[in-house]
């Protein structure tokens, strides 16, 4: 009887050997950051919680067109194109800068964007990503009234924005964007210098390479002239290797913060002067092409 037990005991080390060898190393403790919450660093007009990676230069060309309602005569608005071209660069994985030029109102824009918090799980748990964006715009189009005492500062617009976002699983990402747009010079007394707005945006992946995006900016009453409306944009992100194509419909002809938040003129659908249903929907697209300027140091 005892011998049997002894035999078992003798066999015991062999049992130990047969188990999972990697288990001997213990469980690796890691922090997993949420990645690719959006396909690019823009949702449609505004920014997303994504940054351009360190050492990467992102060349963007964007167009917005005239309202689709113009029909075939205007090939559904394509005749009236405005353009923004710009460069974004990732200094670190959390800090990026960018600049661009818009044909509409001849606006130059520049921004700094920093990831304050990064959504992660594992040994560290943070439920959301929080990014801060500071953007300045210079309107360089000639002053409408040259006889007025026009100052350079009258051309300046500033935007401060927090982007609070979360990736829910593989497909869905949502973000909130409390935003302040400051305008040194406004068109009318109805238009306040400081305009507070709340944006909400989301991404839903339809397939590995196609995603549906939506972006809406709500401006509480009493800050902008009543003729201005909120900006709503819906679009698709299509990714093909090194490019991301963002195709969308929007009611904002502007690609600058001060433009699409405070100066969008037409609703998606509205009643025209003759009482007929009209549509302010415009087609637009952004194309992003990335170039690796500085290789990741982990590869050296």
């Amino acid at each position, binding site marked *: 009887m005892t011998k049997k037990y002894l035999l078992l005991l003798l066999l015991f080390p062999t049992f130990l050997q047969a188990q999972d060898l990697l288990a*001997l190393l213990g469980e690796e403790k890691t922090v997993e950051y949420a990645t690719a919450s959006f396909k690019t660093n823009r949702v449609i007009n505004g920014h997303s919680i994504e940054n351009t990676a360190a050492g990467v230069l992102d060349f963007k060309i964007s167009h917005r067109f005239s309202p689709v309602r113009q029909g075939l005569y205007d090939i559904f608005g394509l005749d009236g194109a405005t353009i923004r071209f710009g460069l974004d660069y990732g200094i670190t994985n959390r800090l990026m800068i960018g600049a661009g030029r818009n044909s509409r109102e001849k606006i130059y824009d520049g921004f700094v964007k920093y990831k304050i918090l990064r959504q992660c799980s594992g040994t560290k748990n943070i439920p959301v990503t929080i990014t801060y964006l500071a953007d300045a715009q210079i309107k360089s189009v000639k002053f409408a009234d040259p006889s007025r005492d026009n100052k350079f500062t009258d051309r300046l617009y500033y935007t401060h924005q927090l982007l609070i976002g979360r990736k829910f699983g593989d497909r869905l990402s949502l973000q909130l964007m409390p935003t302040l747009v400051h305008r040194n010079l406004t068109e009318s007394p109805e238009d306040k210098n400081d305009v507070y707005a709340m944006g909400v945006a989301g991404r839903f992946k339809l397939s*590995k390479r196609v995603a549906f995006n939506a972006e809406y900016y709500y401006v509480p009453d009493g800050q902008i002239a009543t003729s201005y409306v909120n900006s709503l944009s819906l679009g698709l992100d299509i990714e093909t290797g090194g490019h991301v194509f963002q195709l969308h419909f929007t009611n904002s002809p502007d690609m600058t913060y001060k433009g699409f938040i405070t100066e969008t003129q037409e609703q998606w659908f509205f009643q025209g002067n003759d009482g007929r249903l009209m549509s302010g929907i415009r087609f637009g697209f952004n194309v992003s092409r990335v170039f690796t300027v500085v290789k990741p140091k982990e*590869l050296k």
Partner: protein
Amino acid sequence: MKKIVLLFVVLAATTTLSAQNYFTRDGKVKLDATSSTSPEKIEALTKTASCVLDISTGKIQWAVLLKSFKFEQALMEEHFNENYVESNKFPKATFAGQITNLSEVNLAKDGAYNAVVTGKMTLHGVTKDITANGALNVSGGKIRVNAGFSLMLPDYGINIPSLVSDKVTKDARILIDATLEPMK
């Protein structure tokens, strides 16, 4: 009583023998999926592969965190994780196998050996049998492992869309370079 003491001695001896494990947590694994017609390199490197080798039985296991693969181009890395290996769903690639020519490989003695390893490779939720040849260099109590093999990505449910087939090959080459140390 004597018998019991003897037994413990035997037990202790067996346990020591069985603890001939060598390991690493910082093995290098290079992945090369560059197609012959590609203008750019589709390459990635990780320096955090884990491996445990039991030199008495020749059993060997590997684990690689797929998110640890670093590409030259950030977008490529994103596509690798999002579209190809789906590292959120399948975070690790693992291999569990056996040195089949253990009689020709005496890892307790310094020297250079050629080893043949067969076992099960798990990637993207699919497990396949593979065989690889490797060089083992034993010196100074450490074992350096160099091995190379190919993985047919579609076998693991990783499809290469025709749009990028001129850049990304289906037949990915894997190169391993790791130095295993005795586990205490």
